[in-house]
C-alpha cells in the first residue's frame, strides 16, 4: 500500500469513528501534538475528535537526504479523541487491519512509554506500539497540557507514517517508499531535504534568527494580553521552530538552551490558561448539546 492510500485509509477509518478530518496546520512545528488542533483543543471540558496528517519538522534530524532513516521533515498521522473512548485500543488495532497488517501474522505489543514535553508543560501515560519489535505508533492518554490538568482525558494516537510505510512496503530506505504508484518519497522530498539541511546547518542567518525569536516572543505576549489566543499561539509555534533552527546549528549553548525552553514553556502555559478562560467566556460552545439535555 502506498503512503497516499495509507492516509486515505486512516482518514476513512477515523472519520467513521466520528473524527473531524482536519488538514495540516500552516505553521512550522516539530510534532502533530503542537498543532492547536491537539494542544489547545485537548484542554477544557468540550468534547473533541479529530484526525489529520501533520508534516513535522525536526531541523536537527536533517541529513541532506542521505540517511535512510532520518528526515528533516517526516509525516505523522494524528488522532485525538476527547474523552478517550473505552474501546480505543480496538479502534486502533482495527485501523492496522485496514492497512493490511494482519495481527495473526505479526507480533503486536503495547510497551510502556510515558510521554513528556516540558516545553509545552505536557505529560501523558501510555505505550509505544511495537510491530514485530518496531515502534510504529505513540499511544498516549494526556494527563496534563500547558501545565493544566487534562479533564476529561484525551487520547492521542500518533502514527509515524514513513516508519509504518517502510514496514508495509518492505523497504529499508525511506526515500524508496512509494507515495503513490510510480512516485517515491525521493521524487518529492529529496531536494527539499538537501536544501533544508544545507540551510539549517550552513546558511541560516543566526543573528536574524535570534532577532526573530525575540520579535515572535514579544508579539505573542502582546496579543495574548489582548485575549487573542490563536494568533498568540501561532507566534509561540514560530518561536519554537526558530529555536529548533538555532539549536540544530549549535548556536545555542547549553545554559542558554534551558533559558529558551523556559521562555517557550512560559508562553505555552499562559496561552493554555487564556484558551480555557476564553472558551469558558464563550460558554464552552461545543458542550452545547450536553447543556441543553441537562436543561430539559
Amino acid at each position, binding site marked *: 500500500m502506498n503512503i497516499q492510500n495509507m492516509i486515505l485509509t486512516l482518514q476513512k477509518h477515523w472519520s467513521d469513528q466520528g473524527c473531524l478530518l482536519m488538514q495540516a496546520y500552516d505553521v512550522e512545528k516539530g510534532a502533530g501534538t503542537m498543532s492547536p488542533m491537539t494542544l489547545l483543543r485537548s484542554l477544557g471540558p468540550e468534547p473533541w475528535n479529530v484526525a489529520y496528517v501533520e508534516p513535522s519538522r525536526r531541523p536537527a534530524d536533517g541529513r541532506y537526504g542521505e540517511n535512510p532513516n532520518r528526515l528533516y521533515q517526516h509525516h505523522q498521522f494524528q488522532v485525538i479523541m476527547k474523552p478517550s473512548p473505552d474501546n480505543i485500543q480496538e479502534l486502533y488495532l482495527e485501523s492496522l487491519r485496514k492497512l493490511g497488517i494482519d495481527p495473526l501474522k505479526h507480533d503486536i505489543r503495547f510497551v510502556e512509554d510515558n510521554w513528556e514535553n516540558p516545553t509545552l508543560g505536557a505529560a501523558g501515560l501510555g505505550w509505544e506500539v511495537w510491530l514485530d519489535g518496531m515502534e510504529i505508533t505513540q499511544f498516549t*492518554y494526556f494527563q496534563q497540557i500547558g501545565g493544566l490538568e487534562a479533564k476529561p*482525558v484525551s487520547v492521542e494516537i500518533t502514527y509515524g507514517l514513513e516508519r509504518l510505510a517502510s514496514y508495509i512496503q518492505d523497504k529499508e530506505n525511506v526515500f524508496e517508499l512509494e507515495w503513490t504508484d510510480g512516485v517515491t518519497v525521493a521524487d518529492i522530498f529529496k531536494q527539499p531535504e538537501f536544501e533544508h539541511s544545507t540551510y539549517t546547518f550552513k546558511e541560516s542567518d543566526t543573528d536574524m534568527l535570534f532577532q526573530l525569536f525575540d520579535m515572535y516572543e514579544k508579539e505573542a505576549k502582546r496579543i495574548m494580553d489582548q485575549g487573542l489566543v490563536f494568533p498568540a499561539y501561532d507566534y509561540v509555534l514560530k518561536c519554537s521552530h526558530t529555536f529548533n533552527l538555532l539549536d540544530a546549528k549549535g548556536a545555542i549553548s547549553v545554559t542558554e538552551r534551558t533559558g529558551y525552553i523556559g521562555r517557550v514553556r512560559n508562553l505555552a502555559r499562559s496561552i493554555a490558561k487564556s484558551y480555557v478562560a476564553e472558551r469558558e467566556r464563550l460558554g464552552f460552545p461545543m458542550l452545547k448539546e450536553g447543556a441543553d439535555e441537562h436543561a430539559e
Partner: protein
Amino acid sequence: MQNKDVLFEIGLEEMPARFLPGTISQLETKTAEWLQKLGLSFDEVKVQATPRRIAVSILSLSDKQPDIEEEVKGPALRIAKDEAGEWSKAAQGFTRGQGATVEDVYTKDVDGTEYIFVKKFVKGQHAEELLPTFKDVLLSLHFPKNMRWGSGSLRYARPIRWIVALYGEAVIPMEVAGTTASNLTYGHRFLGETAEIDEPANYEKVLADQFVIVDQVKRQEMIVDGIQQLETANGWQIPIDEDLLEEVLYLVEYPTVFHGDYAAEFLELPQEVLITSMKEHQRYFPVRDTAGNLLPHFIGVRNGNSDHLENVARGNEKVLRARLQDAEFFYAEDKAQSIEKSVEKLSKMIYQVELGTLQDKVNRVTKIASMISDAAGVDKETAARAERAASIAKFDLVTNMVNEFTELQGIMGEKYARHFGENEQVAQAIREQYMPNSSHGALPESTEGTIVSIADKLDTIIGSMVIGNVPTGSQDPYGLRRQAAGIIQMLLKTDWQITVEELVERTIALFEEQSLPTVEREKYAEDIRSFFYQRANQLLKEENITYDVIDAVLAVQIGNYPYVVARAKTLEPLRQDESFKPVQEALGRVINLAKKGTDEGVDEALFENEYEKELYRMLQEKRSVYMDAAAKRQAKEALDTLASFTDSIHAFFDHTMVMAEDEKLKTNRLSLLNQLAALILSYADVTKIQWKQVQ
C-alpha cells in the same frame, strides 16, 4: 452450605511489565488481610497476572463469618433500677436497643461500681454479602504511576476494562470505575475470544483455550523450555538474564520463543553495544557459543502462537539490523574523531548552571586527582596516568555512540581511548571512574581508576554542597549518598596514609580558589562534615559495629578509614571483656578530667610526686610507639600501648590532687592529662563505649 472457590479477574489495558511483580505481592498480602479481618477462612490465596489481567483466586472460602456472642455494657446499676427496685426507663431502653429484654440482664463490678450487662448475639454474615467489598482491596493497590482516562476521576495504573467476580458459579455483584462484574473474560487479543467462566476452578483452562497462560510460573517455564530447546538444537549457549526474563514474562500472555539472525559483520562492534541493542532496546536474549563468544543470533519471545513465526522473526531482524547499522555508523564516525576534538566540545556542555560546563568539571576533577595522588603518595608514573585519565575522562560523553546508548558511558570511553592509543591503565581508569555504580557494586581495580573515581565523586558531592544542594530525606537526585559511600569503600581497599578530612578539606580549598556562587562557608563546611560522618557511620553499621563503638571511634574525626574500621573491630569484642573494664575506666578518667583544662605545656619542675613523673615519663616513652602503630594501622598494638598506661593512671589519680589550689600545679597537671587524652581520643573516646558483660 459449604466452602466455595472465589475468582476475581480485573481486565486492564496493557499494564507496564515493571508494575506487575509488585502488584502480585501486594494483592497476596492485602487479600489475605481482608479475609482475616472479615473472619472468613480459606485454604489459599493465589494471584496471577499477565499484561492484560490480574487474577485473584481464593480457594475453599468458608460460607459465612462465625456467629459471635458479645458482652455489652449498660448503665450503672443505681441508674438501672428505681427506688422501688424496678427496672428503670434507662435499663429498658438499653436492653431494647440491644435486641434483648430486662430478663437477660446480669450485673458486674467495674472499678468498684456495679453495671448492668447483656449478652448480644451477632450472627455471622454470609460470604456472598461480604465479597463485594473486595473493591476496596482493588482500590487500595499502590502503583509506581497512576493515570486517569475518559471522563472518570479514578487514578489507576491503566484503564480498567472488565471485571470477573465469581463466588462458586454465581456472579458477585460489584462495580469498579463504571465496570460491572460478570462471568465473561476476554481471551488473547488476536487469537482468543470472549469466554464464559462457569466456575473458578476452570479459570486457567478456559483462558488456556483462548491462548492466555494466566499463570506467570507456567509462562516462565514455557519461555525457559523454548530457549533450552534452541540451545540443544543448535549447540548454543543462551544465558538467561533474570531481569529480562521477568520483564518478557509480563509482556506476553502466550509466549512463543523464536530466534533471528543478524549479519556476522556486526560482531566487529563492541559486545556491549550489541548486547545493549538486543537486551535493553529490543528485549532479546543474546546467543553465545560454548566458549562464551557472541554469535550473530538473538532470541525473542512473541506474544502469540507459532503460526507465521518466520514472519515475526524477519520483522524483528529488520529492526535490529537498522539499529546495528546506526551503531556501526556511529562507531566508525567516533573512531574518525580524536580525543582532543571531543574534549573541546565539553566546554559547550553545561554540567550544572552554578558549577559551569563539563570542561570546568573536568578541570576540577583533574586537580583533585593530582591532589589525591599527592596525598596518597603514589609513584610519579601512576600519578601522571591518573591525571591524564582525569583530564580526558568525559570525552566519550560527546561521542555519537554514548549519545545514543547513554548506559555505555565509560565503557565506550575505555574502548575509544585504546583506539586512540592511550595507555592501557588510562583507558581502564576512564571506565572505572563510574565505579561503584550501585551500592556495594564492584570497585575499580586499578590505582588510577580509584584516584579518578574518588576525584570525580568528591567534585560531584562537594560541588553540590557548596552551592547548597544537600540531599534531604528521600531526595537525593544526584545519588550523592551512594557516591560518598563509594569513596569510603574505595579508601578501605587502599593502603594510603590519607584521612577523609584531608581529602575533603583540600577539595573544598580547590573550590574556594574559584569564584562560584556558594552558600556561606560555615553552612557548607558543616553540611559536608556531617554528610561524610553519616556515611562512615552507616558503613560501620554494615560492618556489624555497635553504635556506641562507632560513636567512640568517630568522636574526633573519621580520619584514615581503614584504620577506623580496624579500631572499631578491635574494640567491638572488648565491650564484653572483663579485663577491658579497668582499662576503659583509667583512660576514661583521663579524658573526663582533661576537659577541665587545656594543654599549656608540661613543666617537669612542677611535679610533686613520683606518680606524676612516672606518668609523664611513660607518655614521653610510649608516644612514638603509639604513633608508629597508628601509622601502620596496627589497631591491636596501638590499643595495647594505651592499655599499658592503666596502672600508672590509677596510681597517678590515687596520689595526685589534680585540681590543686595552686593554679600553676593545676594547670601543669591538666596539661599532662590533655596530652595523654589527645593520644587516647585519636584512638577512640572510650567513655562512649557501653561495657556489656556477657550474660
